[in-house]
């Protein structure tokens, strides 16, 4: 897991020995390795799983930054993702890093909210403290519903509502700001609290306090990524408790009825019926993209391809 391959390390130790200082050669090489890590903004060498899929959106973002506008399938850079591109140049010119976050599946359900309310909780605590968060967007992939193409306009429309979870009724107990792993102890406490609530409280009492962040009317007869600016919420999560977002999809004009075909239309949950699901899910699941700047003089603006 070293940044410097074995053969390189040995050669550097040899060179350091010729330099003849009082410091041990391997310490000099370790110091060089630290500089390498620092250069990349890493704390240790990454060792990802071999089969870890890279979200297509991120591949697309790289391609867009490089100014590669060619279409069509490619081994490394598949075709463009509909509805997605670099953020506007106002933003891209002030940031130099983009990170993608997947939500924690295990926190999708919130006690007290209907089934069609999906909670998206992103652990952004790993954002480096020396980077300045400038912009964040929530990406939701939705696929056309083929049967809807022939429907009249009003029947094709659905509404996506995004809420921020402000507070839980018992914030101390349901606090998930440190949600690396829910311990057995935490589970036990939650179970007791929920039992008490069921005994004494009404359904209303268990509902978290939420705030509408964004709402959008969408046409179900096309495939695209829906992008929502969640910069303010993400900034808050860096300073305060992070309870995540809640997404609901309803029929237009009938806000109380969950929209049908939601699972296959807007990809908020895994689809167990689809055999290609694990891989597809990785590429189409909700994504939080954060755009930060580390103070260095570079940016993510689209590069114009140079002719050599």
């Amino acid at each position: 897991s070293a940044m410097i391959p074995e053969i390189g390390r040995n050669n550097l130790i040899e060179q350091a020995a010729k330099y003849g200082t009082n410091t041990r050669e391997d310490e000099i090489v370790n110091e060089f390795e630290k500089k390498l890590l620092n250069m990349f903004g890493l704390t240790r060498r990454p060792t990802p799983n071999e089969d870890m899929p890279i979200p297509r959106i991120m591949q697309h973002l790289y391609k867009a930054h490089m100014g590669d506008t060619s279409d069509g399938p490619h081994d490394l850079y598949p075709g463009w993702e509909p509805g997605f591109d670099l953020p506007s140049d106002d933003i891209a010119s002030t940031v130099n890093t983009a990170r993608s976050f997947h939500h924690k599946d295990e926190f999708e359900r919130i006690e007290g909210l209907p089934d069609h309310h999906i909670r998206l909780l992103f652990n952004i605590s790993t954002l480096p403290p020396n980077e300045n968060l400038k912009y964040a967007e929530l990406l939701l992939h939705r696929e056309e519903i083929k049967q809807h193409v022939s429907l009249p306009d009003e029947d094709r429309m659905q509404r996506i509502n995004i809420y921020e979870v402000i507070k839980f009724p018992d914030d101390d107990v349901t606090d998930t700001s440190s949600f690396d792993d829910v311990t057995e102890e935490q589970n036990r406490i939650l179970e007791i609290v929920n039992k008490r609530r069921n005994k004494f409280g009404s359904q209303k009492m268990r509902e978290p306090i939420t705030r509408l962040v964004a709402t959008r009317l969408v046409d179900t007869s096309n495939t695209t990524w829906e992008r929502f600016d969640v910069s303010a919420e993400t900034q808050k999560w860096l300073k305060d408790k992070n309870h995540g977002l809640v997404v609901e999809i309803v029929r237009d004009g009938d806000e109380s009825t969950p929209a049908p075909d939601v699972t296959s239309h807007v990809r908020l949950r895994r689809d167990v019926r689809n055999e290609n699901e694990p891989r597809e899910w990785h590429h189409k699941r909700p994504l939080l993209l954060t755009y930060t700047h580390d103070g260095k003089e570079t940016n993510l603006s689209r590069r114009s391809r140079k002719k050599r």
Partner: protein
Amino acid sequence: KAHRKKERKPRRKSCQRQDLYVDFSDVNWDDWIVAPHGYHAFYCNGECPFPLAEYMNATNHAIVQTLVNSVDPSLTPKPCCVPTELSPIAMLYVDECELVVLKTYQQMAVEGCGCR
């Protein structure tokens, strides 16, 4: 009289940008760097001989250093051939927390060399 062939000294290459393609698999970094697979980093190499040609982008200091070197080479060596212009590259990689990151890094590729 037989003509003596004028012996030509082999010309040393003067300071210029040289090709260097960094392939991330050569340093075993291809497991965490997704794209690019490698990049043209280039490097600077060559002599900074007298006279310093225009393309060598010599600084005033390099010209003075050349003058001092001409008086007594033991006082100072000739100017060095170094990068004078560098450009950033973007990298798509998986970080230590298994997050996918797109980041641009400054001063990663040599655009121009000069005598400094």
